[in-house]
């Protein structure tokens, strides 16, 4: 059995399986003291080790850790970034050998897999009664919960929204204070901006990036009443007219020349740099692009709206980001929980998250002096109210994989003339097959 498990480590899913079977008993400290009230300070002394993936919101995590370390000099968090493509396997391997950090940041989308495999410390009793949790990001809390047990809290949030270039709007004769409220309107606006000619295109579509598309095109489908992923075995994916309508919309955008030809090869490496180039009229992207676009193009004026659906007034957003969780085997569970309490405290929400113009992870903290001085952040924060996070144990295989059915479906829809019903049916079959094995 062990040999078979080890060999199967070649796949992420199997890695998780091995870790689940091989982990040692939970350390006494992790279960002791569950009734001790959490504070925002360290209960003991000595370095707390923390892993976080690269490719996330590094600046934000660095600031949070620095704030904790300033408050707790005897108990600093020692942060190690792990290459994000290797993070899942690294965690699974660490848990299997008992060599785990005291706490870790985890891409929220992978949390259900680890929770199901029993590799994270159940924090339900320790976090019981925290008032901060009632306003914590719903997307995060959904994936941090498995079978009504809680395994983590939000570390930071990324939400998607529609960014639009006000300078190009003006040049195209559009009202810069009136972003598109529906996809047909978005199409009309894009045509006008593309007609400006030169390097300018009305819209942006990342053609080879599964993650970028679930982040920005997925919400267009949700806002049009569709459902995307299969939650588990027997669940039906790609349900609703919105799927076909959005695919048709994107195909038409490509055919109309509203996107750059180079977009087709975008695999996520330069996705975040596109809007700041000033050559794109509108694109779905994330809150992180506010600061970035300003750095790239200080003179560019831009606005932010919610990602619309087919009918006016409908909107949606993808809530992404990271959770803080405690791996099984952690020797400092109580202090990891204190770190969570610290992250959710009013002071940190305002003076660290908001001050750095990052989204607060509690919705009741959005109304603060820093956001009031920065309307764009207020605009993007609205996405938290319409956002959602997909919940499935096979998110990577169904959606995020470069070879997965989601990207395959999108590329056939965007760049071929294949019948859309066939394209959707093929993807549906593949997603159901994947979900059936979860």
């Amino acid at each position, binding site marked *: 059995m062990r040999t078979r498990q*080890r060999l199967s480590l070649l796949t992420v899913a199997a890695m998780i399986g091995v870790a689940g079977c091989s982990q040692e008993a939970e350390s006494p400290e992790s279960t002791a003291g569950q009734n001790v009230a959490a504070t925002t300070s360290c209960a003991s002394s000595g370095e707390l*080790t923390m892993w976080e993936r*690269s490719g996330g*919101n590094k600046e934000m995590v660095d600031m949070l850790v620095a704030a904790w370390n300033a408050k707790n000099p005897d108990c600093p968090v020692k942060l190690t970034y792990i290459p994000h493509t290797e993070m899942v396997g690294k965690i699974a391997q660490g848990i*299997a*050998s008992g060599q785990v950090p005291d706490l870790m940041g985890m891409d929220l989308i992978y949390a259900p897999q680890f929770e199901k495999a029993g590799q994270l410390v159940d924090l339900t009793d320790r976090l019981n009664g925290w008032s901060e949790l009632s306003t914590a990001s719903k997307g995060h809390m959904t994936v941090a919960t498995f079978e009504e047990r809680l395994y983590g809290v939000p570390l930071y949030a990324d939400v998607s929204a529609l960014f639009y270039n006000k300078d190009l709007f003006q040049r195209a004769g559009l009202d810069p204070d009136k972003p598109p409220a529906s996809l047909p309107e978005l199409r009309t606006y894009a045509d006008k901006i593309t007609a400006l000619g030169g390097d300018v295109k009305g819209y942006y579509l990342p053609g080879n990036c599964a993650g970028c598309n679930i982040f920005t095109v997925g919400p267009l489908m949700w806002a049009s009443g569709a459902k995307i992923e299969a939650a588990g075995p027997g669940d039906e994916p790609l349900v609703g007219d919105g799927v076909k309508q959005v695919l048709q919309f994107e195909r038409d955008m490509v055919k109309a020349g509203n996107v750059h030809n180079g977009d087709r090869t975008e695999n996520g490496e330069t996705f*975040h740099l596109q809007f700041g180039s000033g050559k794109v009229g509108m694109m779905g992207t994330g809150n992180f692009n506010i600061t*970035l676009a300003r750095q790239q193009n200080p003179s560019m004026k831009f606005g932010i709206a919610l990602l619309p659906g087919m009918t006016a007034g409908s909107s949606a957003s993808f809530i992404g980001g990271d959770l803080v969780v405690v791996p099984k085997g952690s020797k400092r569970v109580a202090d990891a929980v204190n770190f969570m309490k610290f992250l959710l405290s009013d002071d940190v929400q305002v003076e660290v998250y908001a001050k750095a113009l990052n989204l607060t992870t509690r919705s009741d903290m959005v109304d603060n002096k820093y956001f009031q001085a920065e309307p764009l952040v207020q605009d993007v924060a609205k996405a938290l109210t319409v956002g959602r996070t997909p919940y499935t144990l096979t998110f990577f295989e169904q959606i995020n994989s470069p070879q997965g059915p989601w990207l395959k479906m999108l590329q056939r829809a965007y760049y071929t003339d294949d019948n859309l019903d066939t394209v959707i049916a093929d993807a549906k079959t593949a997603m159901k097959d994947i979900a059936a094995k979860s």
Partner: protein
Amino acid sequence: MKKLVAAACVAICTVMLLPLLYSVLASVKPTAEAAATPPTYVPHGLSLDSYRRLWDYQEGLLTYLGNSAGTALLTIVLTLLLTVPAAYGLARFRLPFKELVFVVLLLSLIVPYQALLTPMFLMFAKVGLTNSLVGLAVLHTTIQLPFSLYVLRNSFAAVPRELEEAAVMDGAASLQTLWRIFIPPTVPAIVTVTLFAFITSWNEFLGALVMMSSSEKFTLPVILATARTETSLGGTDWGMLQAGVTISIVPCVLVYLLLQRYYMAGLMSGAVK
């Protein structure tokens, strides 16, 4: 005809060198230009900002260079300590089934080391060798052993038997014979093994990632992989990454240029046997 061959050589060299040249050029572009799409091939301005960012990246470039160099040197030492006597024994001693033993040792070449990583990691964890540069050097040595044994065993076997017999006649013990008779003519092979051990260890990524769990112990390839996805949504700081690539190439090129004379002779002596 000569001109044709020369032209072909220049063309091949150009194809091989252009990516390296592009990497170096990208590393000295200003930050905004390094991230521009579409990319520029020739920098419009020069800047060392990418190197500055890399210098201060996480624990600092010097830490990672030191870890990589230390691991590579220890790998070389361990590889030579193990393979020189082993190859000598297999080449010149009368041992039962020594050909079979040699073949069995070489068989490990056909097993991808990635498949062995997890069991090795669990084993190393039990003896406290994980998150340790010594443990990583042991792992790199393990990867390097079959090839090194192959090269050295064949080189030792090519040393004329008469020389060995003369040494024995003069009363030389086994180790003396190894040191005075076998080592001098097989220096090229030893250099080849050294070179391969260095490059294997210097460039190895997956084992280092699996074995190490704190950033102050990471080697250069691991930190470059981390830097590859430095910005949100998997975006890349191309300038810093190319600066890292440029720096990581330098020791390999230097070692190769210094030892290439021996390397060619050593590889041939192993191959023709």
